[in-house]
């Protein structure tokens, strides 16, 4: 085992947690991520592998599938982001390569993103100050690409429905965190 200690995206050894008026904003570093892009001519085979991995239909555009331990959401035509717990799946890219073989290009995305979980009554009013999405129409399992304060993000609605997961660019973690914290203070 290597002996290099990891840091969270916000620069701390422990994930940051903010609470205000019943809403919590939690940094969530324990996810491994990998992108899966079907190779040309192998789209059907790639989907079959993904279906097998998720034990469910492949996520449609704008949708996610939450399975344990793997989950996935759509990020482009024949392209998905797969996530799994980091502790057990640090080598997620290798695992997926073994499964998909030449039907898809797999790329490690784990540390390209910072993940924030938002939970509680009031997340909707908060998000209204952050992203141009119709949050009232967003259902559990919806996964949209949008922008928060000039940063491209993915927002997923989890289960239960008053929980949102936001993926943003890791290098801008502090800016994104500040934007979300400020919205908490303004909306709640």
């Amino acid at each position, binding site marked *: 085992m290597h002996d290099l200690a990891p840091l969270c995206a916000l620069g701390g050894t422990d994930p940051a947690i903010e609470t205000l008026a019943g809403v919590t904003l939690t940094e969530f570093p324990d996810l491994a991520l990998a992108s899966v892009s079907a190779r040309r001519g192998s789209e059907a085979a790639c989907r079959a592998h993904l279906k097998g991995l998720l034990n469910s239909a492949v996520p449609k555009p704008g949708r996610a599938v939450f399975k344990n331990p793997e989950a996935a959401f759509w990020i482009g035509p024949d392209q998905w982001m797969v996530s799994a717990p980091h502790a057990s799946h640090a080598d997620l890219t290798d695992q997926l390569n073994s499964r998909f073989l030449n039907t898809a290009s797999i790329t490690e995305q784990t*540390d390209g993103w910072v993940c924030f979980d938002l939970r509680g009554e009031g997340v909707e009013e908060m998000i209204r100050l952050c992203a141009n999405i119709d949050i*009232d129409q967003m259902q559990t399992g919806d996964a949209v690409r949008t922008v928060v304060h000039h940063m491209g993000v993915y927002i997923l609605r989890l289960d239960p429905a008053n929980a949102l997961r936001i993926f943003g660019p890791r290098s801008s973690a502090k800016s994104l965190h500040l934007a979300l914290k400020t919205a908490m203070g*303004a909306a709640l």
Partner: protein
Amino acid sequence: MSQKNRLDDGLIDRSETFSFRFDSQYYKGHKGDTLASALLANGVRLMGRSFKYHRPRGVMTAGSEEPNALVELRDGARKEPNTRATTAELFDGLRAESQNRWPSLAFDAMEVNDLLSSFFAAGFYYKTFMWPAAFWEKIYEPIIRRAAGLGSLSTRDHPDEYDKGFLHCDLLIIGGGPAGLAAALTAGESGARVILADEDFLIGGRLNLESHALGGMSGPAWAAEMGARLGAMPNVRVMPRTTVMGAFDHGVYGAVERVSDHLKVPEDGKPRQILWRITSKRAILCAGATERPIVFENNDRPGIMQASAIRAYANRWAVTPARQVAIFTNNDDGHRTASDLVAKGVDDVSVIDTRTDAPSSSDYNVIAGGVIDQTWGRLGLTQIEVKMPRGGIRRIKCGALGVSGGWNPNVHLTCHQRGRPVWNDAIAGFVPGEALPMGMTVAGAANGVFSTHGALKTGADAAKGVLSDLGLTAKTLPLPETEDAPARVTPFWHVKTAKRAWVDQQNDVTAKDIKLAHQENFRSVEHLKRYTTLGMATDQGKTSNIAGLAIMAEVAGTSIPEVGTTMFRPPYTPTAMGVFAGRARGTETRPTRLTPSHRWAEEQGAVFTEAGLWLRAQWFPKPGETHWRESCDREVLQTRKSVGICDVTSLGKIDVQGSDAAAFLNLVYCNGFAKLPVGKVRYGLMLREDGIVMDDGTAARLAEDHFIVTTTTGNALGVYRHMEFVRQCLCPDMDVQLISTTEAWAQFAVAGPKSRALLHKIVDDEFDLSNAAFPFMACAETTICGGLRARLFRISFSGELAYEIAVPTRYGDALIRRLMDAGKEFDVVPYGLEALNVMRIEKGHATANELNGTTTALNLGMGRMVSKKKDSIGSILSERPGLTEADALKLVGLKPVDPENPVPAGAHLMTKDAKATASNDQGYVTSACYSPNLGHHIALGFLKAGDARLGEVIGLVSPLTGINHDVEVVSPHFLDPKGERLRA
């Protein structure tokens, strides 16, 4: 006596008394007052001075169309000029100052302008301030600057915060008066997602200002009940204090919500205002109408107001501006003010109606066919003179005069997308035209329907139309019984005999100015506007535009619709710059990107610089170093002597995979990539379609079907976008997949003669780092520190034996600390961008300075890299005439003949002793630095046919900074030109 002009009732809360200050006087008012209503209640009519002539002015309206009563509200850093007293909600401790007067409102020295008014007619500045020319900069301009504007800024940092927000709905209803409420109730009860926005702090529009009953309830009571009903519906969002200020494309509306303007100080963490972007499937404009005045002699005295404003103050704010009131009207609506005043105990009211068939009344005196000829009272109206229908003059003592020339529907939002309104003779006003913004319909007074019943009905009907469009079943709600009087107006725009009569009160534009514009041939409506400045003040001509058009039509012998209207543009009312900025202020103007070693670099005391959105260490000062050159020189020398480390995470990294990955790269790079062996890296040059260099970088082949492409920091996004375009649009049949991995991997350059030795301590034992096993330009996936996955690239920007090592970003901090620890025995030094730049200039490596969007591979000395054995983007056009001239610019090195001299970037090159003119220009300097290795300044630059002029002494000139000395043309590779250190 305090609040001597108060009446009974009204919608103010007398249980809450507020103390406020206007200029140097303290007054009392109540919750629910505006600054204007509270001042009127206290008998204050004089509230401002006009722009040009400094004439005493009072409040004219009771709404956001106010032209005169503009104050500087608040003090200190929150001071805001040009705030309309009519919309400023009163709060305890409010402070306001009048504007545009010195030394005081009652005595303004600049009133002398009014005496010199014949010199200040419209456009006077086109005919003056020209002679003598020398006076312009030191005398005329400073005077004009001091005189310009109305209010003044605090010039301090603004302490409040603003938010941007996003809302979505089925139906946006703009305006919460009777039409808007009926529409909202109909749509809300039918299950649509509704937003109802009104600029006022009370929902209800004119229902709160009139004395009409609705189904036996008073207007305010009905409005409050409906507002509460709407507020309780989960599918309806009621937004008071919210101005929908623009109709933008695709069903998007801009709305400013004044969250905290009515509070002394915003609550902690809460914004002052929010700019909402509302995306709505449909919209109904229920913005009402604005009463227009009539133009007559001295029609701008304090106390002369809209007739509807006088009754608004009486009904809603329980205030009369004076105990003796006159009304001047051309329509039935003006009479309402008289009857409402009498009902509230102000019974000294006279109505002067221009129409000979004006209705009479037993409650007040009516002069049918009369016209106002003159007014008196410099600091406040004292009496008017009426030209009687049968001849003669009658003088009427009064402290307030309500003027009603008819009503203008507020069509503005219907015209924000280049629509034009159309003339309606029945109301003698403009109504919305045919071409409305997508999804918008109009109801109520905004559509020329002026009765309360008409507003309710058209509002409900419009909502039903929308519901039907959206596939929802409309519930028909019973409408309360209410008045349905027809609008009876006989056009009367101005008294022709008037000598000084105001059309645009805020910009001090008179009827004479409009006639002058016509005389000087500025006759089109857009010219009229700009020549006279009619409609160009902060009120955007809401109470003046139509009268101006009417006067122009008259002198031009055409009709008002033929004169036409000017272009309408958002915002509907003045909007603070702060709310457009939102949270994007100061350091948060844009996101900041931090490298994985940022925390560690901060601990070292690094000085940071911005590279795009990134913060990168520029140099790492050591204790005792006082100048950046000391640090930079030290870092350069130490790296070349032993080993240095630099965080290069910010350079773009693009993952390229697929069975056609190599063919794809062969297309986007001008040099060959198809045959790059697995485990090798190659420098790549990317051209634009037009043959100019776009970017350079490297591509590392980790497997047959897997490359990592690097780009410069600044071009990462541009190159990625370009590659995606090529993939999706130019060669969609290729099997290639791209994704960015810039953020996912922390990457460090480890450079210098001891770099291998250092890395030997980091890379796991199984990996052979020897020169034979891992030569220059090799790459591999490996593990470090006992099994952490890593990528190793033997590439060098510094020209030393060097590597770049990458690990997943979460380990970047740990890695830099481990490298520094392991490197202690080698005197390892961290180096920043300055040192990186010096080293690459010493080696003649190009960066963005050389890849400046005008240079080609040939200019860079890389002409032969453009392979002619294959097609690649830019290859063909790189050979076009103009890019292949015999004396084309070539990259050269430059060193000063006198070693003490610098060779500054941006300087130009001339043949020795030639005159420094553009026609003698031989080239320019792109990158420069002091080389601690050579002991003098050096530079890179482009010189005509430079590769054939090595050794020539040429002139370096920078005329702007007075530099002119000789430099020698040398090879751009100042150090180790054979690259022996690289390949060690």
